[in-house]
C-alpha cells in the first residue's frame, strides 16, 4: 500500500452561503478566534462576482475560506470542512472540498426550489453523502426555535443562522466562544437583544454539534507516487465493516454482527445493516453483552461472527470474551477507541484501551490483539482479524480509534481474488472421528463441528474442559494443561505474523516506536527529520499480541527507544513485560487529539540531542 501522510496540523475551512447569509462575518470570527488561541491563520474571502446576483443562485454565493494551524502560509487550495448554507453554495464549492471532507449543510434550505435555483438536482446529494462526511442540521428552523422567546421577528431570527453554523464549527475544533461573544456584546451594545440572539444562536450551534456527536472527518492523503488502479474514498469504520464482509465471502461463510450502537463505532453496525444484499446479518442487541453473546452463538452455529464497540462497551463484553476464549470459537471483536475513562470524551480519539484489550478479563484468558493504522487499512486488519479467528479458533481483538474511524483517504480497491485464502477449521460431516478439544499439534488449534453436522454432536461451555475430549473436568493438572494450551496457541501466532519492519534511517541511534493510528504522523515526522539529515528510525506495530517474533532483535539494533502513544504509556508498559532489557522512553499525549508532526519532531530531536 502507498505511504500516507496525515495533515491535520493545518485545516482549511470554508463558509459558503448566499450573499445575505453573513459568511464574511462568520469567517472573520473563526479566524480571529483561531489566531487568538495561537494558530497561524491565512484567509481568503471570495465575494460573488455580481453585486446583486439573484438569491439562491450560484452567482450569488459568497464564501470565506481560511486555513489555520501551526505552520500555514496560504489560505489553502482544498477545504477540509465546507459549510454550505444552500444548494448553490454546495454546488459552487464541492469540487474544492477534499475527498472525504466534512460538509455541513443547512437542510432547511435544501428544498426542491433551491436546488432548482442552483441549477442542480436533489439526487446529486446522495452521491455526496457517499463520499463526504455530511453533517446535517436544520439550521434555519433550529435557530428560529432557539430564538423563539427573544421577541425578534422571523426574519431577524433567521439571520442569526450563520452564528448557528459558526457554533457548530467551533464545536468541531474545540474553539472557545468567548471571543465572538465579546464581539457581539461590543458591537450591539445599544441593542443587547440582538447581541443576545446572536450569542444564543452561536451557543446553540455549538451544543447541537456536541449533542448529536458530530465529529470532524480526519483527512488523510496519499503522498507518494500513486499506484495504478481503481480508487475510492474510504473511512475507517466502513473499511472495517467491509474487511469483515470480505473475509466471510472468502471463507465461504455467512456473516453475523452482534452489536449495540456507541460512538464512534456505530457506523460499523450501520454499514453492516445495509449489507443485507450480501446476506450479512446484523443483530442490534439490547446491550453490548447481547451483542457479543449473540455473536458467540452465531460462531458456534457456523458463521464468521463479529461484534463492534468502543471502550465502555468493551468493558461490558469482558466476561463474554472469556467464554469465547475457553470455548475456542472464532470471533472478531472490534474496539473503536475513544477518550476515557468512563464516558469520558466520547467523540474524541485515544489509544487508552490497550490494557483493557490485553488484560481486561478474569483468569488467564489470552486473546490475539491487532491494530489498524490508517482508515483504509482497517479493511486489511479486519480481514486479518477474521482470518486469524477462523484459522486459529480464537476470539481476536482489533483495535482502531476515533481518528481512524472518521478518517478518510483514497484507497486502491483490492480485488477479492487477490485477498489471502482463509482455511477454516470446519469439520465436514463424515470426515472421521471428532473430539472437540483435540488439537493440531503444530498450531494447537481445535476443529469446528457446527450444529447440523451429523454425528459430531458435542457440548462446549465455560467450565474447564478435559483436554482432547472436552468433557467437564476439575482435575487440577488438566487445568494447568489447558491453561498452557490456550496461552501457547496464541503465542504460536508469532510464527505466522509478519515480522516487524523498520522505516526511516536504520543506522540511527533512536528508534521511535508506535502502534495504531499514530502511524501517519509518526512516519511523516521521521521522514521529515531524515530529510533534514537527522537520524531516526521507526518501528510501527500492527501485531500486538503476540508481538512479531523479531521484535527483540530489531530493538537491539538501537541505543534509544521512544514509545509514542495517545495514552499514559500502555504499550511501553507492555513492552516492558516482554522485553524489559530495553530502556523505553515515553512520549504521551492525552487530549483526545492525534499527535501533530511538529510536536513529534521536536520531541525526537530533544531525545537525540540529550545523549
Amino acid at each position: 500500500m502507498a505511504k500516507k501522510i496525515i495533515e491535520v496540523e493545518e485545516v482549511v475551512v470554508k463558509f459558503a452561503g448566499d450573499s445575505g447569509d453573513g459568511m464574511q462575518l462568520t469567517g472573520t470570527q473563526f479566524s480571529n478566534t483561531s489566531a487568538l488561541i495561537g494558530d497561524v491563520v491565512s484567509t481568503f474571502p471570495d465575494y460573488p462576482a455580481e453585486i446583486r446576483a439573484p438569491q439562491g443562485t450560484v452567482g450569488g454565493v459568497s464564501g470565506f475560506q481560511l486555513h489555520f494551524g501551526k505552520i500555514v502560509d496560504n489560505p489553502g487550495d482544498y477545504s477540509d470542512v465546507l459549510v454550505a448554507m444552500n444548494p448553490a453554495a454546495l454546488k459552487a464549492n464541492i469540487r474544492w472540498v477534499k475527498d472525504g471532507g466534512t460538509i455541513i449543510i443547512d437542510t432547511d434550505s435544501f428544498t426542491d426550489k433551491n436546488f432548482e435555483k442552483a441549477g442542480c438536482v436533489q439526487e446529486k446529494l446522495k452521491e455526496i453523502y457517499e463520499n463526504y462526511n455530511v453533517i446535517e442540521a436544520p439550521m434555519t428552523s433550529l435557530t428560529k426555535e432557539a430564538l423563539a422567546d427573544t421577541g425578534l421577528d422571523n426574519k431577524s431570527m433567521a439571520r442569526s443562522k450563520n452564528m448557528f453554523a459558526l457554533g457548530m464549527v467551533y464545536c468541531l475544533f474545540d474553539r472557545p466562544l468567548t471571543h465572538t461573544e465579546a464581539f457581539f456584546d461590543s458591537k450591539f451594545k445599544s441593542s443587547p437583544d440582538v447581541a443576545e440572539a446572536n450569542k444564543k444562536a452561536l451557543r446553540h450551534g455549538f451544543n447541537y454539534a456536541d449533542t448529536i456527536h458530530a465529529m470532524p472527518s480526519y483527512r488523510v492523503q496519499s503522498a507518494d507516487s500513486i499506484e495504478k488502479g481503481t480508487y475510492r474514498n474510504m473511512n475507517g469504520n466502513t473499511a472495517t465493516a467491509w474487511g469483515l464482509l470480505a473475509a466471510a465471502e472468502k471463507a465461504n461463510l455467512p456473516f453475523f454482527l452482534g452489536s449495540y450502537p456507541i460512538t464512534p463505532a456505530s457506523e460499523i453496525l450501520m454499514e453492516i445493516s445495509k449489507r443485507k444484499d450480501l446476506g450479512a446479518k446484523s443483530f442490534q442487541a439490547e446491550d453490548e453483552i447481547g451483542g457479543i453473546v449473540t455473536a458467540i452463538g452465531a460462531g458456534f452455529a457456523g458463521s464468521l461472527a463479529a461484534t463492534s464497540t468502543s471502550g465502555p462497551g468493551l468493558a461490558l463484553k469482558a466476561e463474554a470474551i472469556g467464554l469465547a476464549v475457553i470455548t475456542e470459537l472464532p470471533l472478531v471483536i472490534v474496539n473503536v477507541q475513544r477518550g476515557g475513562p468512563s464516558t469520558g470524551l466520547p467523540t474524541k480519539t485515544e489509544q487508552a484501551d490497550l490494557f483493557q484489550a490485553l488484560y481486561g478479563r478474569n483468569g488467564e484468558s489470552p486473546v490475539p490483539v491487532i491494530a489498524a493504522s490508517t482508515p483504509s487499512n482497517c479493511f486489511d486488519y479486519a480481514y486479518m482479524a477474521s482470518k486469524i479467528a477462523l484459522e486459529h479458533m480464537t476470539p481476536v481483538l482489533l483495535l482502531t480509534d476515533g481518528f481512524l474511524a472518521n478518517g478518510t483517504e483514497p484507497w486502491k480497491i483490492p480485488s477479492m481474488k487477490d485477498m489471502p485464502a482463509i482455511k477454516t477449521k470446519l469439520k465436514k460431516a463424515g470426515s472421521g472421528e471428532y473430539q472437540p478439544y483435540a488439537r493440531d499439534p503444530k498450531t494447537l488449534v481445535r476443529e469446528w463441528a457446527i450444529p447440523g453436522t451429523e454425528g459430531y454432536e458435542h457440548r462446549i461451555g465455560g467450565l474447564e474442559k478435559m483436554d482432547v475430549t472436552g468433557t467437564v473436568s476439575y482435575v487440577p493438572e488438566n487445568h494447568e494443561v489447558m491453561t498452557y494450551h490456550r496461552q501457547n496457541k496464541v503465542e504460536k501466532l508469532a510464527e505466522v505474523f509478519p515480522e516487524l519492519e523498520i522505516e526511516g534511517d536504520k543506522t540511527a541511534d533512536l528508534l521511535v516506536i508506535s502502534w495504531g493510528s499514530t502511524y501517519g504522523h509518526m512516519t511523516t515526522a521521521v521522514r521529515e527529520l531524515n530529510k533534514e539529515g537527522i537520524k531516526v528510525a521507526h518501528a510501527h506495530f500492527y501485531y500486538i499480541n503476540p508481538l512479531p517474533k523479531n521484535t527483540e532483535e530489531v530493538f537491539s539494533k538501537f541505543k534509544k527507544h521512544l514509545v509514542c502513544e495517545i495514552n499514559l504509556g500502555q504499550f511501553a508498559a507492555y513492552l516492558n513485560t516482554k522485553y524489559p532489557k530495553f530502556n523505553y522512553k515515553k512520549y504521551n499525549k492525552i487530549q483526545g487529539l492525534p499527535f501533530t508532526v511538529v510536536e513529534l519532531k521536536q520531541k525526537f530531536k530533544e531525545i537525540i540531542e540529550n545523549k
Partner: protein
Amino acid sequence: MSNPTYTFKDFKSDQEVRWCPGCGDTAILMAVQKAMAELDHKKEDYAVVSGIGCSSRFPYYMNTYGFHGIHGRAGVLASGVKTANPKLSVWQITGDGDALAIGGNHFIHEIRRNVNVNILLFNNQIYGLTKGQYSPTSLFGQITKTSPYGTVEQPFHPGELVIGSQGKFFARSIDSKVKETTDILIEAEKHIGASVVEILQNCVIYNDGAYDIITSKETRDDNQIWLEHGKPMVFGKDNEKGLVLNGFKLKVVKIGENGIKESDILVHDATESDPSLHLALINMRVKDGFPVAFGVIRKVKSASYEMLVEQQIEEVKAKSKIKTMDDLLHSGSTWLVE
C-alpha cells in the same frame, strides 16, 4: 429424506447426570428427551443452550449439540444461534436466576423480538447452584441465605413478565408431570416464535416443598387447572368447578350451584391476541382462592424474528445490484489512476 426415528435414549449423553437425587430437573430432562424423540428433527439439528445454574447444566446431559453459556446470557446465546442458522431447533434452558435476575433483559428482549426459540424456565424460586440465596421469584418474606430475616421484595411472575414483553406463547407445567410437560414442549417447539414454558421445579435441597400446596395429593385437584384450547376452564376432582367472567375479573364457580351451568364456564382461547384475559389466567394464585393455571395459556401467531430477517435479506438481495464483495468494493464513486 425422512428423519430417523428416535427413542428418548438417543438423546442421553454419556455424561452422568449430576443433579441431586430427587431434583426436579431430572424429570424435566426426561420430558425433553421424550419430546425430541417425538418431534420431526434430526438429532444433529438440535442445539441446546443454557446459562449458568443447576438447571443450566442441562446441555451436558443431552446427546445433541450443546452450549453451556455464562450466567444470564442463555437468551442471547440462543438468539445468536437461531438467527445465524434458522434451520436449527433451538432449546434454551434457564433458571429463575439465570432468566430473571442477571438475564432479565435478554429474556424480555428475546420475547419481544419473537425469536423462534423454546425457552424452558426451570423455576425453583431459589438460586440452587450457589447454595440457596433468594431469586427474583422467591416469595415475599422467604428466608434464605441472603434474607435471614425474610425478603422484602415482591417476586416476578414469569408469565406476567412474558405478557409485558409482548409474549406470544406461554405455558406452565410441573417437573413431576413428565407426560404433560412432554406434550407442552412439543407444542412449544411447533409454535413459531419465542415459546416460554415455565416449569415449576422442586429444589430438594434449598427450597424443598415450595410447590406442595399445588402438587400435594390433598390439594392438587383444587389448586390446579389444566387449560386446553377450545375447552371449558374446569377443574376439581370431578371437574365440578370452573371459571367465569366477573366484570374485568375472573371468578371461581361450582357447576350446579347458584344456577351455574357448564355452558356458563369460560372456554379457553389460547389464540386471542389481546393479552388481558391471559394475564388474568396467569395471575391466578392459590392464596386468592384460585387454582393455578397449567398448560398452554397463550399461543398467538406472529412472524418470528429470524424469519423476518431472512425475508428482508431475500427482498434486498433481489433488488440490489450488489451481489458480491467485488461489486460492493466498486460501488458508488470510484476513479481510475492510470
